[in-house]
Structures are given as structure tokens and as C-alpha cells.
């Protein structure tokens, strides 16, 4: 069994475990069943932050070590991070409508900063598409991968910096008021999503490697060999004369 299948099967198992704990956890008195959206929303947001952190590290490593594997990791992690950011935003809006009475609340700094973080990393992917040269693409996107990370701590800490509607930092607080069963459901889903992230990363980096090989092959086929304009002398004709 190859690495992708092992990771894929592990992801299915841990998602099942996460779903079980999520369905068994007690409901919030006011939010009712909508509480369960948190078991997708919170892990998605955490995974988005993790993805962009991996991109930051891989970008620094590309600039210092110049090994294409780091560029592949950075790009793959951004693609997955953008997906998780979109998932966090969507689940947040789905939860917001019944609980806050609106899909989008301008008083929520976390929502706003996360949406802008999403657009910066969409810009990262757009930048990569507009540069054909692999080394130039890797270097420029590495710099952007470092600069863009400024928005990640800002998004996380926005609930402290700006007066906002969003719930403050809860799980990471030393005096966390969160119920034990809810915390277990939340952490099991964070774990499950992390395995899903690793599975996606494994597949995406393999695809990126395949794409690079394909690019190299087509470049080799398209390239005109040196001296192609000079044809070999037709010696048989010379002999006939």
C-alpha cells in the first residue's frame, strides 16, 4: 500500500472518530444544533493558519537552500490553506445567520481579517500562474509567502486588537471555560483535519512534482537542438556526381 492510500485511509478513520465525538458532545443551551458547525469551522480555521505557517517556513527554506521541494511544499500548502480558509469563512457565515441574524457582520474583525487573508493567498496563487520560469516563480512567491504571513497573527489576534462580535480566544486560554466533552470533540476534529491536511499535502506535492517533470519534458521536446539549421551532407549524391 502506498503512502497516499495509507494517509487517505487514516484520514477516513480519524474523520469518523471526529464525527462520533462531534455528534456525542453536548449542545449549547442557546445555539442548539448549530453548535456542531464549530467542529468544522474551528478546525478549518486552525488548519488554514497551519497551512500558511508551513508556507512561511518552506518559503524561507527555498530562499536559503534553493531546493525545489520547498517551493512545491509552499505552493501545495497555500492551495490547501486557501481551501480551508474558504471552508472556515463559509461555515462561519452559515453559523452566523441563525445565531447572529446575518451571514456577514461588519462588526466581526476576525471575519474581515480572514477574508482579506484569503484574498492575499488567492493573489499568491495568481502570481504563480503568471510566472513561467520555475526559479523566478519560486523566489517571488517565496517573498510573498513571507510577507503574506503578517495577516495570519493579525487574524488570530484581531479579537484582542479590535472591539469585535467574534468570540475571543477560548481554547488557548489558561482558564478556558470550555466544557470537557466539547473540548474533546473540538480537539478530535482538529486532529482529523490535520490528517486530512497531510493527505492533501502528500497528493498535492506529488501532483506538483509530476507537473514539473511534464514541464521539463515538454521544454526538452520543444527546444531546438543546437545546429538544427545545418543539415548533414548527402554523401550518396556527391558520389554519384
Amino acid at each position, binding site marked *: 500500500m502506498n503512502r497516499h492510500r495509507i494517509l487517505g485511509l487514516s484520514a477516513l478513520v480519524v474523520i469518523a472518530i471526529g464525527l462520533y465525538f462531534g455528534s456525542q458532545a453536548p449542545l449549547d443551551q442557546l445555539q442548539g444544533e448549530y453548535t456542531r458547525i464549530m467542529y468544522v469551522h474551528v478546525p478549518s480555521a486552525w488548519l488554514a493558519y497551519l497551512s500558511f505557517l508551513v508556507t512561511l517556513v518552506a518559503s524561507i527554506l527555498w*530562499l536559503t537552500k534553493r531546493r525545489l521541494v520547498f517551493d512545491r511544499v509552499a505552493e501545495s500548502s497555500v492551495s490547501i490553506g486557501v481551501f480551508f480558509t474558504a471552508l472556515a469563512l463559509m461555515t462561519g457565515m452559515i453559523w452566523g445567520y441563525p445565531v447572529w441574524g446575518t451571514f456577514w457582520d461588519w462588526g466581526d*474583525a476576525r471575519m*474581515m*481579517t480572514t477574508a*482579506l*487573508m484569503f*484574498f*492575499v493567498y*488567492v*493573489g499568491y496563487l*495568481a*502570481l504563480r500562474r*503568471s*510566472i513561467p520560469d520555475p*526559479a*523566478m516563480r519560486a*523566489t*517571488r512567491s*517565496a*517573498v*510573498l509567502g*513571507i*510577507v*503574506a504571513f*503578517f*495577516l495570519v497573527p*493579525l487574524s488570530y489576534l*484581531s479579537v*484582542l*486588537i*479590535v472591539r469585535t462580535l467574534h468570540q475571543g480566544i477560548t481554547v488557548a486560554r489558561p482558564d478556558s471555560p470550555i466544557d470537557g466533552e466539547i473540548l474533546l470533540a473540538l480537539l478530535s476534529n482538529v486532529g482529523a483535519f490535520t490528517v486530512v491536511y497531510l493527505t492533501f499535502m502528500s497528493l498535492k506535492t506529488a501532483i506538483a512534482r509530476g507537473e514539473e517533470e511534464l514541464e521539463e519534458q515538454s521544454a526538452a521536446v520543444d527546444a531546438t537542438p543546437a545546429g538544427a539549421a545545418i543539415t548533414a551532407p548527402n554523401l550518396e549524391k556527391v558520389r554519384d556526381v
Partner: protein
Amino acid sequence: MTGPSFWGQAYEIGRKDMRVEGRSGEVLNITIPFGAVALLLIPLAIGIDRPLIASVGPGMFWVVTLLFGMLVTFRHSATETVANREMMVLLGMDPAAQFVGRVSASFLLLLVFEGVLAPLTIVLYNPDPVSGWPVLLVVLLLMAIGLALIGTLASGITSGLRSRNTLAPLLVAPLSLPLLVGASQTYEALSQESSILTPILLLVAVVLGLAVVGVLTARFLEEASR
């Protein structure tokens, strides 16, 4: 014989950028009037509600500074060609010094931009006066430095690309969020007479972080632009 020092090189680049601006007058003749037009159009779009216009005025000023200020920082990416960049390399110019020089020129031009549009905003929107206005001058300075840093970095990242004109604003607008949050939160804190420490610290941290990243990555961006 040795060439000019790091700061000497940065000074020459900044002076060159200012001279180009002096000849073209792009910021003074085009970008500043464009920003002023935007400030005039916004009240027409939201309706003639004087208390509302007064309350949104400071926010509109920051948004116009951000959106039109990025045009100020992109102006040199359009004039710089591959030949210019190669000449800089042949002359042995330090990429970090070039970055500092460009940021300095953009910073000065952004200060002019803010210096014209801030009084205009006060005249047009008549915002509620706040105590501690010298703090706002510090915020204007920090906003100009931060925007100059982000714009110069984005120009370097997108230089020479066909999609530069659309891609660079897409990168700069969301990246300027910490500056916008810091500036608007400082104004809000001043108007409510609460602590301004957190937003000012945010602005300072972002400016310092961007300056460090910009100087450290200048060499890589210079390599990737050839």
C-alpha cells in the same frame, strides 16, 4: 577606489526616483487630484446625510490613502526596464540599498499625498474634532512608511510581469489591512479617549517587520527580476 556607502547608494536611488517624479509630475498632477475626486464622489454615493458623512470621513481618508497611495508606490515599476535593472547590477548597487532608496522616495511622495488630502477631508467631511491630534500625525507617518514598504515589495514581486497592473493592487490592498486597522483604531481610540497603545504598537510592529523582510529579501527579488 570604493563606491558610495549603503546609505549613499540609497540616497542616490531615492534622489533618482524623486527626479523622475519631478519630471513626470505623476503624483502631483494625476494621483493627488484623482484621490481628491474620490473624496468628493463618496458623499454623493452615500447620500447627503451630514452626521453620517462626518462620521465616515476619517475612514474614507484612510481608504483613499490606501487605494490611491498604492498608485504612488507602483509608479517606478512602470518606468523601470530590464535594462535599468541590469545597469544597477553592473554598477554594483546593493539591492537592499535600492529597496531603501525606493521606499524613501515613495514615503516622501505619500507624505505629500496625505498632506494634501488630509486638510481636504477635514474641509469636505467636517469630522468631529479629536483631542491628541499630534498622535494622528505619527499615524500618518507610520501609514506612509508602511504603505511605501508594502508597495515597493509588491512592485518587486510583480515587476516585469504582464499581469502586474492587476496583480500588484490585489496583493497590496489586503496586505495593507494591518495599517488600516491600526490607523482607524487609533482614531477611534482618540475619539473615545481610550488607550491608543495597541493600535500604535500594531503599526510600529508591522512597519518594522516589513522593513526587515524587505531589506532581507531585496537580493532575492533582484535576482528573480533578471
